[in-house]
């Protein structure tokens, strides 16, 4: 595969070419205005792009893609830049294309329960726009106020409700996409399945490496009649983990099922006073949604289950205000942890739920070994773990130590049967850990898929799939330790 070394045009030449297809106000080239584009939500990885373009029409975007393809210029698509794996980090010799101006909701089909939106529309804006019809868009990543649906498609974003309602891949019916050559193709359609390969499944979560989406048709769901949340506190993490398994085993699929450990509980409680018992070792939030009758029935069963399993406190929201307050603690867990440490690094691994207490125990051992604290928030329903490693970037060497610790956590997730990323993506950040999850033959297969879509390797180069030479280097470093 080709890389940046093949690039032949200089920055002034690229600007001249871009000037032929875009109005001047769509091109950013000065350092000061380029600066905000140097990273996404994971700011430890920065790179200044040559140019940023902000096209206004699909035709302009298409012309940019064709131009980049013709001259083999790296092209990094970017939504709101809320990603957490440096997936939108620019390429030093490349163009960043911001989809910020593709921010229109084109059509809402109330009867078919679908919405056609441009990729720069914010996730939450969809639910807000269709709320009047009693509908909503289910995937709700924590960044949903800011993140865009185009970014969600690139990362296959989840959220707290995905055990019951699925990920982006389960909630998108179709999209239009520009291929690396600049052809505009439609993938999927208004029906539930279509002819040929299931390209939606392959493309959603492909981190902008196979194409650039220009319009998306999402599925909408009827908003549940009612939602209630039960909070349960435990004096032991294992008891809480067992409670999660028992709820699922009892045949109840909660709308959301979240766990926090003692560091996270204390930080969140101090931050927003949600009423969490600060002496608890683990806290569960279990949301039940559905019809009024179903929620009543299941809430009773969940409360009883928690009590039987030794919860030291059980509290159920009686109204929306109480429900929002109980969630507020969980939703602000990241900023809350930010207050007790100068910096934190958010990891994203997934494990089988049965491994939870084992993984937490081993993570605590590593925490002592590295001398770095870890707070845990956990999408317990679907096994997605978000350890927050607390560190101080001003202490020399501490970021490097944190990254190494984080890498070890992800490798532990793979070792117990999980994976290195549940929803944040690989980007640049987790390239090193890819070799823990995939062997060389599997990685080669990924590269061949990439080449099938993008033979010149212009789309988001250097992300997602490590080059095999690097993997061998990492493996020998590991072996030598």
């Amino acid at each position, binding site marked *: 595969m080709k890389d940046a070394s093949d690039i032949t045009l200089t920055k002034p030449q690229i600007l001249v070419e871009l000037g032929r297809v875009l109005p001047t106000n769509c091109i950013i080239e000065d350092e000061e205005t380029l600066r905000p584009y140097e990273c996404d939500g994971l700011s430890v990885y920065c790179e200044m792009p040559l140019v940023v373009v902000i096209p206004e029409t699909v035709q302009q975007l298409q012309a940019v893609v064709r131009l980049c393809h013709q001259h083999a210029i790296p092209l990094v698509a970017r939504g709101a830049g809320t990603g957490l794996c440096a997936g939108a980090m620019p390429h030093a010799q490349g163009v960043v294309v911001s989809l910020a101006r593709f921010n229109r909701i084109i059509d809402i089909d109330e*009867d078919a*329960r679908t919405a056609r939106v441009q990729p720069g529309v914010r996730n939450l804006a969809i639910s807000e726009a269709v709320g009047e019809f009693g509908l909503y868009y289910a995937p709700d990543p924590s960044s949903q106020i800011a993140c865009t649906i185009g970014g969600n498609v690139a*990362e*296959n974003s989840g959220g707290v409700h995905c*055990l019951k309602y*699925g*990920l982006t*891949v*389960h909630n998108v019916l179709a999209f239009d996409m520009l291929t690396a*050559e600049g052809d505009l*193709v439609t993938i999927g*359609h*208004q*029906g*539930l*399945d*279509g*002819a*040929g*390969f*299931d390209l939606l*499944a392959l493309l*959603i*979560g*492909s981190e902008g490496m196979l194409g650039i989406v220009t319009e998306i048709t999402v599925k909408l769901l*009827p908003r549940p*009649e009612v939602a209630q949340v039960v909070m349960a506190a435990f004096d032991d993490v294992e008891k809480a983990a067992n409670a999660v*398994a028992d709820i*699922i*085993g009892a*045949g*109840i*699929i909660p709308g959301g099922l979240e766990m926090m450990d003692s560091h996270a509980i204390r930080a969140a409680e101090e931050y927003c006073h949600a009423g969490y018992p600060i002496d608890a070792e683990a806290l569960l939030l279990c949301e039940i949604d*559905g*019809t*009024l*009758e179903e929620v009543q*029935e299941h809430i009773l069963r969940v409360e009883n289950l928690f009590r039987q399993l030794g919860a030291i406190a059980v509290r159920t929201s009686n109204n929306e205000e109480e429900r929002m307050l109980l969630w507020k603690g969980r939703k602000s867990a990241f900023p809350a942890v930010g207050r007790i440490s100068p910096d934190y690094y958010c990891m994203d691994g*997934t494990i*089988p*739920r*049965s491994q939870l207490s084992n993984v937490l125990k081993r993570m605590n051992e590593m925490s002592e070994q590295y001398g770095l604290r870890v707070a845990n928030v956990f*999408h317990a329903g679907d*096994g*997605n773990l978000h350890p927050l490693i607390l560190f101080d970037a001003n202490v020399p060497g501490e970021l490097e130590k944190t990254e190494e610790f984080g890498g070890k956590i992800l490798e532990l997730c793979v070792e117990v*049967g999980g*994976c*290195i*990323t*549940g*929803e944040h*993506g690989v980007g640049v950040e987790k390239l090193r850990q*890819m070799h823990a999850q*995939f062997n060389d*033959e599997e990685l080669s*297969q990924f590269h061949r*898929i990439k080449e*099938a*879509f993008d033979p010149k390797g212009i789309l988001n180069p250097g992300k*997602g799939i490590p080059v095999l030479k690097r993997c061998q280097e990492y493996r020998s470093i590991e072996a030598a330790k």
Partner: protein
Amino acid sequence: MNKDISSELVDQVSAAKSTLQPLNIVGGGSKEFLGRVSEGQPLHMREHCGIVDYSPSELVMTARAGTPLVDLIDLLDQHHQMLAFEPPLYNGQATLGGTLATNSSGPSRPWRGAVRDSVLGIRLINGEGQHLRFGGVVMKNVAGYDLSRFQAGAMGSLGVITEVSFKVLPKPATEKTLTFELSQADAIQKLTQWQKQPKPISAAVWVDGVLSIRLSGAQRAVDGTSRQWGGELMDEKEATLFWESIREQTHRFFHDSRPLWRFSVKSSLAATGDDAMVDWGGAIRWVRREASLPNMVQQAIPMEGQVSLYRNGDREAEVFAPLPTPMKQLHQQIKRAMDPYGIFNPGRLYSWL
């Protein structure tokens, strides 16, 4: 039965690769009627079977591709769990691998997802004879390209699926089926209105002037909705048989030798003629008609849907909706990326693939 013949399968693929011998992947042989006729030496999967892992509290099962679905269901039943996608079992012959390869999903599909939505990971032998693992056994996994769900509907043209991990669901506490005598147009209007409400629908079919709706979930939720919507309550045994006849396509509607066309459309699309059957809450329209594919494709255009020749008819001609040129090229390039020697089920999906 529990047997791992993956090394033999890898050997057979490697041999086929070196002699450029096309392979026709066969599980239980229950879906031979689907897709185009495929020439090739049979690669028998049935012996590669057995449940590898099942953890009820994780809601995850892993089984070898040749395992009959009925074996999976037997074990799931013991734990009050089920396959979310309600696949046809074809007299017990349908296997897990074939079900994924054909994305074969039953009446519950619009509400509980298709096979592809349940899949979490696979093992697969590619055209190089490499036995690879993609995805995993956890609900969320975004590492690498999703080559697991991607197998759904590819009809085995990308590789030999040897093992599948998938999400399962608890069985609903209760089910009720309501029926309404309605014209197709009225039925679609009702379905459109009802599907906008957060009610526990799990299947909805209109055939022969009757709309049948299945409600599944907590007892009180099902009872409450059933009181609210009215209609006639179908006897429990009769309901089981009815939904089975839809799932297995043994309903008398399907007793017909004419070509059976499957229109995949948006659920709220207007009525398509009283001789059609409406499934998936409106998203599938079954039509029996002597016609050619190009002719039916023309009809599907104003419907903003896609049509395929599902059963009967000329299976040497194309049976799936044609693809525009750039899409066709993408398909060919992807096929080459996974099956560079073109040995897996050539022509089964499209004559040119």
